[in-house]
């Protein structure tokens, strides 16, 4: 039978967390799944296709990392169930590819031995061999293969062609699947066997991680470590403003030119209004924030790659524990800076159900990237771009303050939850600290490209669609003559009764509704509302920031900024909370508390600002 016509062999990539399974999966299948230098990035099984040189096809499964087949968390349970063939709707894999971190074989070999006991055909991929060599770690792969009784190959998953040897061994194995030739049998001491294998095959240098130790002495210091963390975060937000402005001005000018050109070419009428006041003003108002989003993510991706983030989790563990969370909550909460949905899903790596629920409920308080356009718009319109203390950008300081306020609110909410629950015990944090690594430019660029694509797809998809729908509601029934009498205008005015105490006008109230689907739509909605409201075409073509600066008080702007710290309006996040907790009650509770918090904080901000003369 021809190799190309054979049914695809199912291979499962298994191993301890952070050994490079996903990087290897991306190499083998050409996928672009997220990789980072910390444990718990993959919480679900992923599948991709590999075509070997013989033409044979393989279904490759990337599984969440697990330390043992005795699962201690939800993601480990997913890995165990898939390996054993008990995962619903998933056939058992035909063979296992056990991925091990060459720099940490003491930990990884134990799991490899446990997997070997299953008796399934298996290949061991000793990954990160380049890092091991740099540190002077010598591994006798031939001897390891003889003692383990399964094929052993070296891989460098982050390097092009770094998995070639693995593909060759997979092809050879596919010709005739064999169970491992060595087994330990029941009751064997896996730790003793691991020690025996290490002694026979691994040569460790006297000092393996001098750089790691030196860096950790400072970066894990209780005082200097926290100072360094605060400094890093602070610099990121400074850079977001300092570096993005030229590109943003360029996009802004491009959007204005496009609006004027299209307006001049098309005859006056509804279609021209839809394109100029609706699509170009609305979508252009959001797309202008792409440079800021990319700069923020460049830093986050670099930190992920460097191995610094688990250290930050370690540093913050005490503070998080006193607030009712654990250091394990750090990574899910950090993921929530991109979007609360993957953050909430990442809580599957938290073993304790109580900690997991607390993390899920506070994850929406982390400032997701969708909120950045709203912050940037309001800060740009109301906070003058001045230098503070000779160095710092004032707009960057305000942005840092908003992100910090989100984090502080999350800690406060989880502390309140801790006071309510009966079990006030804290769980010790056990976390694997990876080696420091210089981020790879290729991975960073791929990460940024994907981030840009996610943003642009949102702009071209849900944001564009909602902008069109909102334009219709603003244009009809009176042909855009008086926006206050349009369908959306009437809805906005009805809602403004509820939101008047927090200082929101009817235009803001309109923007809040489509913002339920995606928070950035609030910006495009405001752009469309103001473009249609402005009789002067030149004024309509200019950027949104000066328009709202003229029309709003500082108190209203501050109130809206504070509203968006809590912003309960994201249907997708609420749906994910329902799915992950399997409880309507938890979802309703999260919606209720976020809305109450947003309203109370915005109300307090507005009233205080008015009292201080900013109204």
């Amino acid at each position: 039978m021809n190799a190309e016509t054979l049914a695809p062999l199912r291979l499962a990539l298994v191993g301890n967390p952070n050994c490079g399974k996903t990087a290897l999966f991306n190499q083998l299948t050409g996928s672009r799944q997220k990789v980072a230098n910390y444990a718990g990035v993959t919480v679900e099984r992923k599948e991709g296709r590999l075509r070997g040189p013989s033409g044979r096809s393989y279904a490759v499964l990337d599984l969440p990392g697990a330390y043992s087949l005795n699962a201690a968390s939800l993601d480990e349970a997913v890995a165990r169930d898939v390996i054993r063939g008990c995962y619903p709707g998933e056939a058992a894999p035909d063979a296992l590819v056990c991925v091990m971190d060459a720099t940490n074989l003491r930990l990884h070999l134990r799991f490899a031995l446990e997997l070997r006991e299953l008796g399934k055909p298996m290949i061991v991929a000793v990954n990160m061999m380049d890092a091991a060599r740099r540190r002077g770690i010598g591994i006798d792969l031939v001897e390891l293969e003889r003692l383990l009784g399964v094929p052993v190959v070296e891989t460098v998953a982050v390097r092009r062609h770094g998995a070639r040897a693995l593909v060759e061994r997979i092809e050879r194995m596919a010709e005739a699947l064999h169970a491992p030739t060595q087994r330990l049998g029941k009751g064997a001491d896996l730790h003793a066997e691991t020690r025996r294998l290490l002694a026979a095959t691994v040569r460790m240098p006297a000092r393996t991680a001098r750089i790691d130790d030196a860096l950790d002495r400072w970066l894990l210091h209780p005082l200097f470590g926290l100072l360094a963390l605060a400094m890093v975060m602070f610099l990121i937000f400074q850079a977001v403003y300092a570096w993005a402005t030229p590109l943003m001005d360029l996009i802004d000018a491009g959007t204005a030119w496009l609006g004027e050109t299209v307006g001049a070419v098309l005859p006056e009428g509804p279609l021209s209004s839809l394109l100029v006041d609706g699509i170009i003003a609305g979508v252009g108002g959001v797309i202008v924030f792409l440079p800021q989003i990319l700069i923020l993510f460049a830093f986050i991706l670099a930190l992920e790659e460097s191995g610094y983030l688990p250290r930050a989790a370690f540093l913050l563990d005490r503070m998080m524990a006193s607030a009712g969370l654990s250091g394990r909550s750090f990574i899910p909460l950090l993921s929530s800076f991109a979007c609360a949905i993957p953050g909430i899903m990442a809580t599957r790596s938290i073993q304790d159900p109580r900690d997991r629920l607390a993390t899920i409920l506070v994850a929406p308080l982390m400032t997701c990237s969708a909120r950045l356009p709203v912050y940037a718009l309001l800060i740009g319109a109301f906070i003058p771009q001045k230098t503070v203390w000779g160095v710092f950008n004032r707009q960057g300081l305000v942005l840092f303050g908003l992100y910090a306020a989100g984090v502080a609110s999350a800690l406060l909410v989880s502390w309140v939850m801790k006071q309510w629950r009966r079990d006030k015990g804290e769980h010790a944090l056990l976390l694997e600290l990876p080696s420091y690594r210089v981020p790879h430019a290729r991975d960073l660029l791929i990460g940024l490209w994907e981030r840009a694509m996610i943003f642009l797809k949102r702009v071209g998809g849900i944001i564009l669609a909602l902008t069109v729908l909102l334009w219709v509601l603003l244009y009809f029934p009176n042909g855009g003559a008086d926006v206050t009498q349009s369908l959306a205008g009437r809805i906005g005015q009805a809602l403004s009764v509820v939101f008047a105490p927090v200082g929101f006008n009817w235009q803001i109230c309109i923007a809040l509704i489509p913002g339920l689907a995606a928070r950035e739509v609030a910006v495009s909605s405001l752009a469309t509302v103001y473009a249609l409201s402005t009789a002067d075409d030149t004024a309509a073509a200019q950027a949104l920031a000066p328009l709202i600066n003229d029309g709003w008080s500082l108190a209203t702007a501050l109130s809206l900024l504070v509203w968006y710290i809590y912003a309960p309006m994201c249907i997708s996040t609420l749906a994910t909370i329902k799915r992950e907790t399997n409880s309507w009650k938890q979802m309703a509770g999260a919606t209720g508390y976020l809305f109450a918090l947003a309203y109370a904080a915005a109300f307090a901000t507005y009233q205080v600002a008015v009292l201080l003369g900013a109204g």
Partner: protein
Amino acid sequence: MSASLLLQYVVIALAVIVSAWVVAKKQFPGGVRRLRMALAIPMLREGRPAWLRTLGRKIASQVRSGAGGCGGCRKCD
């Protein structure tokens, strides 16, 4: 109403239909799936013309399980 204005309204109507569909698919994937199934099943009944059954199969084939949840950010795909 002039022909030019009528054409503009037709284009706008199409844009609105497509936009409403995009929003529904992103925000209410479960509802859209059920709607597709409800539309496809009568088309696939015995005795229906071949073209209608082909159309029904086309509608039904795009209905996949587990489509919901993400609703826009696509980070979790």
